[in-house]
């Protein structure tokens, strides 16, 4: 499987879409988790600060400044040395009365809240921590500040973000890997179906789509396709059988008829006046037999690969022999028969069948090329493989009819009047299929060019 086709495959695209959707929903979910957990922690801090302020304010109202001072000192004292609470009480002029920071933070309060940086002294080092505090104005112009070192909150928030980031990365990675794996699995099975159908189109009708026995949808599809192929094959087989039987069963009585006519013809007492009529009857019987033979021959060739009779032969040598055989016939019609062999390719072929196919092509070329026309036979070796082309300068074949001319008994309207049984090209087609050769019909401007291209390596 090439990577390009993988990227273009619909399964891969589907997998990608799923990964995108999945990632988006994970992102949404994680944002919610982040928002609610971090927000909860912040709210907890704020609530604790508010409660503490209320407590302190009540103490001030009940016991006055001295009471408040004692309480704050006690709280500061209690949480040393690693406490996270911040206390500060100043008078109206900003002079510190009591607290664990040395001055009022230099930030603007928003709705009574201050966010500032705190120089935190732990046991062995000094670092800057974020802090959040609330200011409160007491009666008598005193200002109270109660806050919390929120370094913990910041760390927790970072942890959550890091965890969420990893989570999304992992989700993407797993989704992509899973999508890759699943789509590759599916693609492999579709590929095997494609490969099978291609081989079937190339004539190996007995080929079947492989199943893996899992009974999944692909297996069901494969089984259905295989059953369909079985039916097609048996239908084709029965059609072939019927036409074979017809040809075979009619051939025997026909040859008896011919034998009797011949016996009649050779009788010494035969009236001479009847001889021409008998000759004609015999030649008609011969034509019929010829048609049956051609039909049976095509059926035999098509009914299965007879690879045993294929051997390595020189394509140009066979083509040269056919040209040599037909040269006098072309000369009789004042046609120029040109043979060019640009290469000496070796193909795996049945010599007689190849000769027959080329002879049929050349026969047609001579038949349809007008007096004085040109017929070209060219043997070449291209990247596609060894090829032999027969080009005539006759009326050609319209594009619409090109597929049809390989059908049995098909004849173009323009050629119905000339001799032939409409089986010549069917035989060429059958021979080409046996050799896994490709037939191309092209415009020869004017005329038709038929090219047989063999697979490389003669296979």
């Amino acid at each position: 499987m090439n990577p390009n086709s993988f990227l273009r495959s619909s399964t891969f695209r589907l997998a990608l879409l799923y990964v995108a959707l999945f990632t988006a929903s994970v992102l949404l979910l994680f944002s919610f988790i982040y928002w609610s957990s971090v927000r909860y922690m912040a709210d907890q801090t704020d609530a604790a600060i508010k409660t503490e302020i209320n407590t302190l304010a009540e103490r001030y109202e009940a016991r006055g400044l001295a009471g408040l001072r004692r309480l704050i000192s006690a709280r500061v004292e209690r949480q040393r040395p690693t406490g996270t609470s911040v206390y500060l009480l100043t008078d109206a002029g900003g002079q510190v009365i009591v607290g664990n920071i040395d001055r009022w933070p230099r930030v603007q309060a928003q709705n009574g809240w201050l966010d500032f940086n705190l120089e935190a002294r732990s046991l062995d080092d000094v670092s800057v921590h974020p802090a959040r505090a609330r200011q409160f104005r007491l009666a008598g112009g005193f200002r109270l500040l109660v806050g919390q070192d929120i370094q913990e909150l910041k760390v927790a928030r970072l942890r959550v973000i890091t965890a969420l980031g990893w989570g999304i990365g992992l989700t993407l990675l797993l989704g992509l890997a899973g999508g890759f794996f699943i789509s590759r699995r599916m693609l492999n099975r579709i590929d095997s179906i494609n490969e099978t159908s291609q081989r079937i189109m190339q004539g190996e009708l007995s080929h079947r789509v492989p199943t893996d026995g899992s009974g999944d949808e692909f297996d069901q599809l494969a089984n259905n396709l295989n059953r369909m192929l079985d039916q097609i094959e048996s239908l084709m087989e029965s059609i072939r059988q019927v036409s074979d039987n017809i040809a075979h069963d009619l051939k025997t009585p026909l040859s008896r008829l011919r034998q009797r006519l011949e016996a009649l013809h050779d009788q010494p007492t035969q009236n001479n006046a009847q001889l021409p009529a008998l000759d004609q009857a015999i030649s008609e019987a011969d034509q019929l037999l010829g048609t049956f033979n051609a039909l049976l021959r095509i059926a035999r060739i098509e009914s299965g690969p007879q690879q045993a009779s294929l051997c390595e032969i020189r394509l140009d040598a066979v083509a040269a022999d056919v040209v040599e055989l037909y040269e006098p016939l072309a000369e009789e019609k004042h046609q120029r028969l040109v043979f060019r062999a640009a290469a000496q390719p070796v193909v795996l072929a049945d010599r007689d069948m190849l000769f027959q196919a080329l002879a049929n092509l050349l026969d047609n070329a001579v038949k349809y090329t007008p007096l004085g026309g040109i017929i070209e036979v060219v043997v070449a070796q291209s990247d596609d493989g060894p090829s032999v082309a027969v080009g005539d300068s006759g009326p050609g074949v319209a594009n619409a009819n090109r597929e049809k001319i390989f059908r049995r008994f098909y004849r173009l309207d323009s050629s119905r009047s000339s001799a032939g049984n409409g089986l010549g090209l069917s035989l060429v087609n059958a021979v080409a299929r046996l050799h896994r050769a490709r037939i191309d019909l092209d415009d020869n401007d004017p005329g038709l060019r038929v090219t047989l291209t063999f697979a490389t390596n003669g296979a």
Partner: protein
Amino acid sequence: MHILLIEDDPDTARHVSNGLKEAGHVVDIADNGSDGLALASNEAYDVLVIDRMLPAMDGLSVVSQLRDADNPVPVLILSALGDVDDRIAGLKAGGDDYLAKPFAFGELQARIEALARRASQRTTVTQLKVAELEMDVLARRVRRGDSVINLQPREFRLLEYLMRHNGQVVTRTMLLENVWDYHFDPQTNVIDVHISRLRSKIDRDFPVQLLHTVRGAGYILREPE
């Protein structure tokens, strides 16, 4: 000639034997393989004509048993199966020629006579002569009377085959098989054109014709009577 025909279809057997008898041959008929093998082993025949599909023992087995017993009698195999694979199987089993049914009787007769002659001409003749037409096969020279005739290589092989079968009918398929060396089914008169070319070289400028067309059968090169 003494000919044994092993054929189970009575119509074909009658047709062939009548034809051969008319042509002056003596014909024995066996309608199954084992009778045929027994006859062929005990009598001296000039040619055997054996059908492939036979009751009791098939035609190919008859031929291989004869060959195993070093019987060199020329064998022509008849068969309804006319394809290349079958032909190869027939020739491998030891047959000398192979003819697919249905056949024209003329074709069969010509092949039987060619087989018999091939068997009698064990030595290779290199100087051929029919009336005043002479061929030196080794020097590749042809002359008729005093005039030298120039032939293309294929025309030479064609004439050589006709001269080697002097006085016998040779059919178009025999020519294709032996001169062109291909087994195939010509659709048109492609052989006739080659013959008429050859004829124009060896016959046209001379008062007596040597190469004749036999209607419905093939050609014959023979000395004037």
